[in-house]
């Protein structure tokens, strides 16, 4: 079994079989992570560059750890300066790195489309670690893995993504991936944070958070990102919390089982109250562990393809 593409650019258009294969492979690696010696020789001799043009801590660490667990050689290239400023162009940087003979590139960039662009200028396998407001496919995969781990399936589950959908790369990857796996996906948030045309993707919009809690099995709660100008689309974090924040009171009202995901880092007291963030419904730290296993699966499947 192998994947149908040699890159992972997003989950849009990725066949169900590919997602299933990644999730199944991740289960094997998840077991490896519980061993006393957490390393396998699978990607020995492969060179992977983590090309991070945007600040990231957890995604970069998670990828790096996954690479090390697979015995690959890893190089980190991080910069927050964009090529719009004077200096080397993005293309030249990539060409230089590639001239050092690398096999795979994991890329994060402020601009959507950079992973696609990379496939045109590089021969390496490309893995998208987040591009602009577009996709973050390994996050989508680890979210699906974590839901499945808790509830045993994806098909037929009702999943609502809550928060700033328009400015999230996690939302789209979740929507495409979950729909492909047969889940029923919806979104909920202030209308200023719901992008145009989202319903055409087969996604229901909840305008009221209580209704969203009542009618879903899973809530994937996004971080309100003030650095992405969220402040102009909501009056205040206080007001956001009051009308869209997930609190124990809100959940307990419905007296039901619900699974809560969050891609982190959490703004406690904004999108989640502390009781919820540390409470029985959340799987937030499982997501982090699963993230390493899922990334190992993706790296392994792409790195051993020929």
């Amino acid at each position, binding site marked *: 079994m192998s994947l149908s593409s040699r890159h992972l650019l997003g989950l849009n258009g990725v066949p169900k079989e590919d997602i299933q294969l990644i999730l199944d492979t991740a289960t094997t690696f998840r077991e490896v992570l519980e061993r006393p010696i957490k390393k396998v020789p699978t990607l020995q001799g492969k060179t992977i560059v983590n090309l991070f043009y945007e600040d990231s801590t957890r995604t970069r660490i998670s990828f790096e750890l996954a690479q090390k667990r697979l015995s690959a050689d890893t190089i980190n290239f991080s910069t927050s300066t964009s090529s719009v400023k004077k200096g080397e*162009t993005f293309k030249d940087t990539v060409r230089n790195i590639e001239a050092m003979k690398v096999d795979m590139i994991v890329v994060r960039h402020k601009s959507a489309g950079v992973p696609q662009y990379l496939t045109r200028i590089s021969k390496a396998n490309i893995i998208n670690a987040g591009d602009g407001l577009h996709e973050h496919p390994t996050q989508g995969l680890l979210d699906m893995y974590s839901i499945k781990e808790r509830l045993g399936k994806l098909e037929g589950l009702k999943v609502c993504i809550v928060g700033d959908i328009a400015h999230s790369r996690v939302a789209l990857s979740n929507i495409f991936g979950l729909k492909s796996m047969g889940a029923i996906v919806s979104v909920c948030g202030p209308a200023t944070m719901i992008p145009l*045309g989202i319903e055409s993707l087969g996604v229901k919009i909840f305008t009221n958070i209580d209704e969203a809690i009542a009618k879903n099995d899973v809530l994937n709660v996004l971080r309100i990102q003030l650095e992405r100008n969220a402040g102009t689309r909501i009056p205040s974090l206080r007001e956001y919390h009051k009308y869209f924040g997930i609190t124990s009171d809100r959940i307990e009202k419905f007296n039901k089982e619900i699974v809560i995901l969050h891609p982190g880092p959490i703004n406690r007291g904004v999108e989640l109250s502390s009781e919820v963030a540390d409470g029985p419904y959340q799987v937030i730290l499982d997501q982090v562990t699963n993230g390493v296993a899922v990334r190992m699966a993706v790296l392994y499947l792409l790195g051993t393809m020929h």
Partner: protein
Amino acid sequence: MKIILKQVLILNPEQKLNQKSDLLINDGIIEKIDGLKEADFKSSKVFDFDNKLCSPGFFDMHVHLREPGREDEETVETGSNAAAAGGFTGVACMPNTDPNIDSAEIVRFIKEKAKDHLVDVYPVAAATLARKGEALSPMYELFEAGAVAFSDDGVAIKNAGVLRNALEYSINFGTPIIEHCEDESMAEGVMNEGLISTTLGLPGIPKVAEDLIVMRDIMLADFTGGKVHIAHISSKKSVELVRQAKKNKISVTAEVTPHHFTLTDDLLKTYDTNYKMNPPLRSRADVEAIIEGLKDGTIDCIASDHAPHAIEEKEMEFIFAPNGIIGLETELSLVMSELVHKKHLTVSQVIEKMAINPRKILSIPIPQIKIGEVANLTIFDPDQIWTADINKFKSKAKNSPFDKRLMTGKSIAVINKCKMFFEDKFTSI
């Protein structure tokens, strides 16, 4: 020197001309139309343009020549060469150069650069100093130096009060204000806002950002009596607003680019920066409304918004790449392929929109095809099939999404100012 254009099909709706004739041009002046003698053929250079169309020279009222400031991207000369190759004998160049065209010296500098070229170059000057939208530029002086219109192109004049003054002040010399209609507070995106931008994760610019300024500008044209020209119209609602304004006899005119009646936003799926422009490519419904607007005369003319960019600037991460594409050398072919051969416009309507109306809007004399007049002509073949090749273009820049596109219709020659461009070279005639 005498030349003969043999058996051309002369078309000029302005003069109600539609006839197959021999045309004798002596030292750049039309000397005879038909009735040529054997001796004329012996003493002239004869071009056998049998059945090719001959129209008053085409005019593109919206090009960026980048000089002064970005001569690495284009110059008055290379841009004029591209214009000649594309079938144009005249262009109006936009003021967003470096420095901006906001002083008489820069207007004169550009005119001086263009003086010996076949292509007439008419500068459009900045409406406000440094195109900042604050203080008016020395408009009267700029007009006197040769500016044919005023614009803060790249952006709309931000402040309605400033636009009011610009419109009123220009009444004294009759020039239009050319507006790039976009409300900046809603235009932080990089493509059309809609399902496609949502799917691609690219920030969008809503159509209403254009419609709002089109509406504001129409109301100010009505209020002041000044002339507003809407540059590169792209949205369905804006076309409707212009249509209604014209019904109400308000002085508003509009242009559209070939890419806005040919391409749609779904092409951005490859993140190819050659599809990044401002206004952005819109939806199929907008393209259809634009074609309707061209058919019923709501949209007066076609202009390229020729925007040369250096390769290294355009070949960049999508959100950082500059807007715009070159267009002079594909414009006529796209018009023929997409509008004439698809039966939306007649060739006469094309001549109105590409030769007559732009000059009317800018108060530039319209070339006549009659004895004693200066020969200012475009000869073109509406049926020639060819494939665009950016490496053969005269423009310095290569940022075109139409490279390798198969098109029908091509310019064969242009004649103006005692010069001819034919078979890839300029000659004096």
